[in-house]
């Protein structure tokens, strides 16, 4: 999966890579379907005799507007199913359905049903032979359940249907997508800065693609629905209507069993055995100044701010354990995480028990002090990305972080002042971060675009960022070799930060 995504990065760029933004693309298709649906609703005549004719009119007579809008509506709805299924597959393959992610996974399941209910109802509205087929097949499916006093299929006998049926259909075809929007809102509640609109280039490219498709293959109807005849051959939309052939190939009960089993499987996935999540972030009130940086940077909204109990007028971060991903991005955001603090035992405002900032400083001091060679390099790696620990050698110290976002930027300067000639920071590719924003926040902090930022006095030529996923180890090695050669050419130049903590180097040396 990562190889495919990396390949698409080369073509679209990480920010507009459709594989990395399937959720946003799904929202985008929904926005298009909703916007085009407003126009179609305005021009639709919901009389039983008129509905098909009104759709035929704007499909053929007004093809340059109504026809294109109808095709956009249809293809956007199809695209929504396609990217939704890919989104589910991608999250499943990455194992993103358990632990703190259970909520997003579980709340995504009802949206599946709502997408299908919205789409299938749309086919009925066209009231052609395909719509009639779908309506009868759906009614036969639901009649299997003992919920209707009179079978729903009897609504489609000659002489039974009235205009009111289509009024009800329109109501459902508007109401269910609104319910879908509500379900999606619930679905994204536990992620901050939700990706509900793709990058501009991806949005424009997708819209252009839909327009070309609408012009090249306009959506057309089957013949008008006739309750006394069936259509032996149907050009069905397999994205939505595959359930009908599946039902006729099995049985209504069989289809309920398949749909129920799949739904149940999706719902119990988070309950199946999975790797245990590490300890969650812990706040140390005396060292928290209420700056809100952890609150802003947390990718999962697991931190809220409360009035500080000991410092009037100040706030204190509070971690919600059930929401915390144990990524450590908050520790990297905390200004108290600077290693330049003189205390022997470095305690920061918010920290990870399994990889405290104080222990990271001690490990860095020890490893840098042990380096030998012409150039000494400190590498800050990420456990989720390419295995940076394999880069460790006599002249290269590697500090493997839970997430690159855990790295407080001041650690880079501290490493340079502590004896390293250069610092290589690596982690997952943009958009590939297991914790969403680790790569992005780290890059922005080190480039001075996000607080806490790396001080401008740190020479840029002694810092290199290189993002590499698990399968890109050879690329990372090549980057390190190139960086080593680059540092050799720099030598001991004037701009190199002077040693700041000789006491510690002596201590560990």
């Amino acid at each position, binding site marked *: 999966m990562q190889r495919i995504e990396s390949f*698409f*990065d*080369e*073509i*679209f*760029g990480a920010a507009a890579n*459709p594989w990395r933004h399937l959720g946003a693309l799904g929202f985008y298709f929904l926005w298009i379907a909703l916007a085009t649906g407003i126009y179609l609703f305005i021009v639709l005549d919901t009389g039983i005799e008129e509905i098909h004719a009104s759709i035929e009119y704007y499909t053929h007579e007004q093809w340059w507007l109504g026809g294109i809008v109808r095709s956009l509506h*249809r*293809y956007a709805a*199809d*695209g929504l199913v*396609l990217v939704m299924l890919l989104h589910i597959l991608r999250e499943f393959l990455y194992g993103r359905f358990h632990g703190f992610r259970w909520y997003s996974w579980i709340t995504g399941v009802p949206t599946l049903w709502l997408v299908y209910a919205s789409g299938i109802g749309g086919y009925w509205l066209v009231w052609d032979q395909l719509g009639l*087929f779908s309506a009868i097949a759906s009614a*036969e499916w639901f*009649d299997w359940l003992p919920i209707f*006093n*009179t*079978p729903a*299929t*009897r609504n489609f*006998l*000659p*002489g039974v249907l009235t205009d009111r049926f289509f009024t009800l259909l329109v109501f459902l075809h508007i109401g269910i997508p609104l319910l879908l929007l509500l379900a999606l809102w619930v679905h994204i509640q536990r992620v901050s800065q939700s990706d509900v609109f793709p990058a501009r*280039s991806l949005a424009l*490219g*997708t819209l*252009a*693609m*839909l327009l*070309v*498709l609408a012009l*090249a*293959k306009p*959506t057309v109807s089957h013949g008008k629905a006739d*309750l*006394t*005849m*069936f*259509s*032996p*051959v*149907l*050009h*069905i*939309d*397999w*994205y939505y209507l595959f359930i*009908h*052939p599946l039902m*006729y190939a099995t049985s209504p009960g069989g289809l309920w069993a398949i749909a129920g089993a799949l739904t149940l499987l999706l719902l119990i996935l988070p309950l199946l055995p999975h790797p245990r999540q590490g300890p969650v972030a812990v706040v140390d009130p005396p060292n928290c100044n209420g700056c809100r940086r952890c609150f802003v940077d947390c990718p999962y909204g697991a931190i809220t701010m409360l009035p500080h109990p000991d410092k009037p007028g100040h706030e204190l971060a509070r971690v919600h354990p059930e929401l915390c991903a144990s990524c450590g991005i908050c520790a990297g955001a905390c200004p108290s995480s600077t290693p330049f603090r003189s205390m022997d035992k470095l305690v920061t405002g918010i920290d990870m028990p399994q990889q405290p900032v104080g222990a990271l400083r001690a490990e860095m001091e020890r490893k840098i002090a042990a380096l030998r060679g012409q150039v000494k390099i400190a590498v800050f790696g990420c456990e989720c990305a390419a295995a940076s620990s394999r880069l460790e050698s006599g002249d290269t110290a590697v500090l493997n972080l839970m997430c690159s976002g855990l790295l407080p930027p001041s650690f880079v300067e501290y490493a340079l002042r502590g004896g390293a000639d250069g610092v290589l920071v690596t982690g997952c590719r943009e958009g590939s971060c297991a914790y969403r924003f680790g790569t992005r926040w780290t890059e922005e902090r080190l480039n001075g675009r996000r607080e806490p930022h790396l001080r401008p006095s740190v020479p840029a030529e002694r810092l290199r960022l290189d993002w590499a996923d698990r399968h890109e180890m050879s690329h990372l090695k090549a980057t390190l070799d190139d960086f080593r050669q680059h540092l050799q050419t720099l030598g001991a130049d004037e701009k190199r930060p002077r040693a700041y903590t000789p006491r510690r180097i002596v201590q560990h040396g």
Partner: protein
Amino acid sequence: MVSKSPTNPLVMVAQALFYGLFAVIIGYFSTSPDYHHLDPDTALIKLSFSTQAEPAGECRERTPEELAKLAPNMRAAKTCPRERSPIRVSIDLDGKHLFEGVAPPSGLSKDGPSTLYRRFEVPAGEHTLSVKMNDNVRIADFNHVREEKMTLKPAQILVIDLRKDRGGIFFE
């Protein structure tokens, strides 16, 4: 490796190719492959009814003692059992047995309508259709019978219904 610049012609061509592939996948499965629902030389017979059958027992006159025990506004002279009869159905096509079944009354007290829905694919052409139903357990034989010669066109749907307000069994 090509430059990632969006103005790089290679990048633009590659993007166009993938957008095109995306469009082809969406467009193709939107209408294809065709689904052959039924054989074009067949017709469809649908048996569909939802109707209340006759009471399962006889109505009787209440005794004066029973009437005296009732509230004045409830003193109806006749009382009937609440439970309804199941509806038995038998269908023959061209002298061959096509279907036989029973539709029980719905509801916890078995006082609701009996419903049944079945579909049968039959070859188009001339047929003799014989439908028999019984909606009264107190009658041993079928009390609704209809037999008709008919020509079913290809792809025609024929509905068999039971509507007492329309004379019992009717074909539509």
